[in-house]
């Protein structure tokens, strides 16, 4: 039962990712990206971590594609040239996927998922990983300031 759900989810995720990469219409690509990330949030639900799922939903599935759409609008790029047929790259990607997948599939056969509560994540975040947490917050602040400085129009 849950395997069927996983299969459907995984199939849709891969389909969405393929649309992102192969679509010649960049707006559709952005929508497909949002769709993919939304489904990945479903994956996190299955992994027993609603916290991660909702953060994925809010940031990756909602905010980031909207930002992307906004930039698409501002730069008025409507279409991208379809991916050029670089066979080496395709082959490389397929090999990575196949090898990685096979290795992962054979190597990891655990079946039990341990669910995580938001409280658990919060407590861990502010105790053990407090330093990375602070670094991440500084990073976000820097990104914000940097983005403003970069994108600001220089007044002559």
């Amino acid at each position: 039962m849950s395997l069927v759900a996983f299969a459907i989810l995984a199939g849709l995720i891969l389909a969405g990712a393929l649309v992102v990469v192969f679509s010649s219409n960049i707006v559709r690509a952005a929508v497909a990206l949002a769709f993919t990330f939304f489904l990945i949030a479903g994956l996190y639900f299955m992994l027993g971590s609603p916290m991660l799922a909702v953060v994925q939903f809010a940031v990756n599935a909602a905010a980031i594609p909207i930002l992307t759409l906004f930039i698409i609008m501002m730069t008025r790029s409507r279409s991208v040239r379809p991916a050029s047929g670089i066979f080496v790259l395709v082959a490389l990607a397929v090999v990575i996927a196949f090898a990685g997948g096979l290795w992962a599939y054979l190597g990891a056969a655990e079946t039990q998922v341990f669910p995580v509560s938001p409280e658990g994540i919060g407590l861990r975040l502010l105790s053990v990983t407090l330093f990375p947490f602070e670094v991440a917050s500084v990073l976000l602040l820097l990104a914000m300031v940097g983005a403003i400085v970069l994108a600001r129009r220089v007044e002559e």
Partner: protein
Amino acid sequence: MITLGHYLTLSAVLFAIGLFGVLTKRNVIAVLMSVEILLNAAAIAFAATAAYRDPLFFSGQLFALFIIVVAAAELSIGFAILLTLYRHAGSVSTDVIEEMRG
């Protein structure tokens, strides 16, 4: 039953798709979107590993959270650079960046 292997396989395939996008796209926006796929593939792997193998500390899940944070930061900076590039060159193609070299 779903095993950890299923998630890792999915992650690997997703990573490959994202890598392909990064290498073949000419539009910078499309490249950034492909990078997002790459990061998410990694996040899936981390979260899944944590959920199956790390019931006490679930560090992988925290790492997935950090990945999301970093992705957001990366994207905002990327788009800001993109905007200045667009104002300078009137285009968001990687060809333009190439011409700016030197």
